[in-house]
């Protein structure tokens, strides 16, 4: 069975239909790159997967939990689904270490010492061990984004959702963040990433999903789909971003 399953998902903001009959399933260990123009619904779809946005129709099952059921325990689900945002959103009043341990201490009730050990491990993994006691405004954008990833990883998620996490970064800082993602990929982490980094999608992604006007317009193996798109829309989109 797949880890994530979307069935006929529809989502509206008022009268605006942003997701139309989305069907998508993601297997354990799979890396899915979601691409498309802005406004095509990619970020919204991602936010629906961990329940940040409610849907009007359809079913979303994540790791055996139907999150569209009326009594779904979203907080329990979110501990198994990590999410990283475009704008990092570190907690400015907490040090790097406290940013990473907060959810462990509050949600998991992990003992202080153990939470710290986990924080050390995760922050080391993203290459920022020396910044453990720094505050967010003392870090560069790339460093902040790596801390944000460490913060999500600390909860031991089964799947990671990445929402355009390099879009706000200066070009020279993009590489350090992508390298962290490569490490995760090598470890076999299940990931859905909304991205504009076509090269990254092509080399690291297993599958590419192209969204257009609220629908999944085309999908297939990453390399093949990006090298030889079947639809005119994907072709013109790729032309626009690659040239």
């Amino acid at each position, binding site marked *: 069975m797949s880890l994530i399953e979307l069935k006929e998902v529809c989502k509206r903001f008022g009268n605006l239909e942003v997701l139309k009959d989305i069907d998508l399933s993601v297997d354990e260990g799979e890396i899915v790159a979601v691409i498309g123009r802005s406004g095509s619904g990619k970020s919204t779809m991602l936010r629906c997967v961990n329940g940040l946005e409610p849907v009007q129709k359809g079913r979303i099952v994540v790791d055996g939990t139907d999150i569209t059921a009326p009594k779904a325990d979203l907080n329990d689900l979110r501990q198994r689904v990590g999410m990283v*945002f475009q704008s990092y*959103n570190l907690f400015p009043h907490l040090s790097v270490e406290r940013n990473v341990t907060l959810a462990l201490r509050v949600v998991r009730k992990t003992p202080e010492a153990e939470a710290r050990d986990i924080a050390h491990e995760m922050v080391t993994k993203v290459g920022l061990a020396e910044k453990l006691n720094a505050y*967010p405004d003392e870090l560069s954008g790339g460093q902040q984004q790596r801390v944000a990833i460490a913060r999500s990883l600390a909860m031991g998620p089964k799947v990671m959702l990445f929402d355009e996490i390099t879009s706000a970064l200066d070009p020279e800082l993009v590489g350090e963040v992508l390298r962290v993602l490569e490490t995760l990929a090598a470890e076999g982490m299940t990931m859905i990433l909304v991205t504009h980094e076509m090269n990254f999608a092509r080399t690291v992604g297993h599958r590419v999903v192209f969204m257009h006007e609220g629908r999944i317009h085309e999908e297939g193996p990453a390399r093949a789909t990006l090298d030889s798109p079947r639809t005119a829309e994907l072709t013109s989109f790729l032309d626009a971003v690659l040239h």
Partner: protein
Amino acid sequence: MMREFGLNDVYFLLLAARWTIALTLASTLIGGLIALVVAILRTMPFRLANWLAIGYINLVQGTPVLGQLFIFFFGFSAFGLDVGAWTAAVTAFSIYASAFLAEIWRGSLQSVPKPQWETSAALGLRYFEQLRYVVIPQAVRISLPPTVGFLVQLVKNTSLAYVIGFVELTRAGNMLNNATFAPLIVFLTVAAMYFVMCFSLSLTSRKLERSLHVAH
């Protein structure tokens, strides 16, 4: 018959200033607790709670604190409930402070960027955990200057309690003025005492702001 203003009178004013301070402190503490609840009700994603909070804030802000003092002092005693001047004054000023602080704190809570809520939600924190660990600590820093600004007003407004016979600094000054007929020295002393109170509030706030800034 009319006596001179003396050292005894400064002491008398200092004793009265204690009541100004006590009234301000008690109203800030009790009012602050109510304000916290009201500010949260006002901002939480639950319409009925928002309406209740808005109604409370409008009701209190729309009535003069003087009227509230009367209601608690004379109104309750008309129903056979004997409320002392201190109790009535603390009640009235707590309610008065709660509405204004709730409104200040609502603004501070709402000025914490929405992604902070979302990110903490995505980490599995529940509503009140998000509020307590992520939003309130950031809102406190934003709210500090306007909160202290209000407290300085509150210190001075407590003088209104004289209408129900509560002897605080201003009322004591009035009484001394009528014993000495020397308004200049009496009210200069009174003003100096208010200044010391309000200025130390501002100083404390500036210190606190700085320490909060260092700790982010």
